[in-house]
């Protein structure tokens, strides 16, 4: 037996080759969307982890420039600041330079106070804090590389070398952290700042970024001014912002990339809409008489229109679902290779939801013109044209 869905299938696959080509077109567009959407989503993920009462202090020239160690105490003394910590970019890789891992040298106790969302079992926390060559490893990296508590991990840095000439920094995995949100990025590593500072061959007593907590987010603006004004006459001036603004500013540096990715997706969907829309209009023209017959039999104009739009939604839907599925599979393969630059890369629910919305929207859009044509088609004219 047949129903409206059966009629939609029969209409959509009236010419199988044409239907398959349309599905492939939609699949490519949604494959692109899935991949690029996942990259954008990963880029934006950091912003969602920011805290309202956390500020970032960077060198005014650039966040990659150092600040003097002595600044820590001066920032700590600003009214309204409740905790201060700092982090230096380590530029680590494991075994091969292509195996990059996001790694910071931090002051363990103050860092874990300021970033209290890092969840670590108490014994592991104590072990990490108490071992100068200890390493705090994110669960994602520990799982990916099979690291366990007690393992000695020979990390190397892209730009740092020990003062004894050794390139390898032997570190012992003392703790593994997780985050409350199971999908949040847990790929970063943390080692002791003191170990880095003592063994480092250059740039001693320099810090990268300072992070601080304020007593109340309402005081943020006042504290930002107090810090930056306080260093305004020093050789190294500071630029203080909220953590969220800092993350957004970091993303803005990739602004062109974000815009490029968005433009590529928009172009893909515009092409898809034109191709599917045009094909659906032509397909309906071939079936003018069939539409006339259906209406003659008593199918109402609205139902005929829904059937035609349903065909477009079905074709875009099949292609879209295939494209998103392929993107998910491809992202699994890419995730480990791109872990250093895109930690946590993978298909997110947001991208899937937007994808589903796009499938429905594009299907309805491309089916709208032929659907309305079918709605308005007069039986006498349709049957006459067919003859």
């Amino acid at each position: 037996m047949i129903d409206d869905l059966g009629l939609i299938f029969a209409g959509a696959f009236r010419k199988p080759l044409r239907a398959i080509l349309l599905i492939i077109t939609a699949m490519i567009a949604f494959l692109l969307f899935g991949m690029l959407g996942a990259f954008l989503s990963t880029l934006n993920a950091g912003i969602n982890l920011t805290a309202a009462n956390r500020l970032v202090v960077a060198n005014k020239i650039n966040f990659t420039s150092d600040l003097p160690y002595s600044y820590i105490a001066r920032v700590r003394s600003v009214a309204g600041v409740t905790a201060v910590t700092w982090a230096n970019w380590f530029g680590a890789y494991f075994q091969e330079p292509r195996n990059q891992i996001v790694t910071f040298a931090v002051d363990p106790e103050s860092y874990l106070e300021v970033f209290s969302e890092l969840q670590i079992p108490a014994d592991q926390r104590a072990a990490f804090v108490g071992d100068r060559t200890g390493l705090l490893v994110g669960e994602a990296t520990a799982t990916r590389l099979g690291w366990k508590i007690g393992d000695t991990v020979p990390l190397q840095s892209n730009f740092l070398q020990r003062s004894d000439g050794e390139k390898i920094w032997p570190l012992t995995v003392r703790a593994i952290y997780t985050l409350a949100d199971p999908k949040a990025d847990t790929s970063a590593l943390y080692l002791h700042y003191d170990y880095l500072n003592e063994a480092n061959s250059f740039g001693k007593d320099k810090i990268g970024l300072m992070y601080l907590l304020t007593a109340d987010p309402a005081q943020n603006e006042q504290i930002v001014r107090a810090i930056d004004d306080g260093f305004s006459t020093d050789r190294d001036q500071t630029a203080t912002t909220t953590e969220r603004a800092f993350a957004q500013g970091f993303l803005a540096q990739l602004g062109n990339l974000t815009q490029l990715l968005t433009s590529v997706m928009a172009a893909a969907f515009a092409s898809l809409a034109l191709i599917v829309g045009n094909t659906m209009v032509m397909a309906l023209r071939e079936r003018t008489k069939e539409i006339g017959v259906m209406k003659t039999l008593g199918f109402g104009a609205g139902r005929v229109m829904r059937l035609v739009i349903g065909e477009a939604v079905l074709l875009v839907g099949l292609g879209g679902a295939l494209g998103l599925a392929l993107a998910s599979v491809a992202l699994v393969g890419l995730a480990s290779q791109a872990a250093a630059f895109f930690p946590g890369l993978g298909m997110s629910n947001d991208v899937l939801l937007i994808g589903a919305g796009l499938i429905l929207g594009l299907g309805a859009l491309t089916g709208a013109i032929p659907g309305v044509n079918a709605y308005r088609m007069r039986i006498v004219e349709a049957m006459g044209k067919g003859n």
Partner: protein
Amino acid sequence: MGVLVDLNGVSKSFKRGGQAISIFDGLSMQIEDGDFIAIMGPSGSGKSTLLNMLGGIDRPSAGAITFRDERVDNKSEGAMAKFRARNIGFIFQFYNLMPTLSAARNVELPLLLTKLSGGERKKRVKTALELVQLSDRAHHKPRALSGGQQQRVAIARAIVSDPAMLLADEPTGDLDRKTADEILGLMQTLNRSLGKTIVMVTHDPAAARFAKRELHLDKGRFEERLSG
């Protein structure tokens, strides 16, 4: 037998190049329940237009059409579609089957406009295909059927929802004599055994002889001859 359809003073005209062209003016006729009428006439006499108006797919410019005492020519498009689904079965010259659907699914189409269950629809499709002696072709697509078989499927589709009236527009116009006579014989059986009212437009005098009445439409007027 009561009156099934009453055409009262029906006119039809259309505009072409800014000029009004009248097809017929003040045409009246009655179709009795159980009638089998063949409408003949020269090309352009308005036979098909008349059939379209009887079937509720075209409207008269003036006059009234009633079906079982209910005025139908002034119904909305939606109501007209429901009227067609409930009361009229259509048989076309070129069969007009859906090429992507099997014979059974083509026959089932009008039943999608009812509230019948899948099982009930299946039963009715089976009965209709048995009536036209095509049960063994139920799963064939139209392209795998001969012209006569396709027209039988079209007839099954026309009767499956048990409409009161069948409208046939040159139903044998695309068939050879032998097949045409088989189809006309089938229509005659539907009329005589099942009491279906049939209005058939044809150019073929041999086809018209299967009907009970022949109406000749020419220059906007009817001339009636008894037949059969």
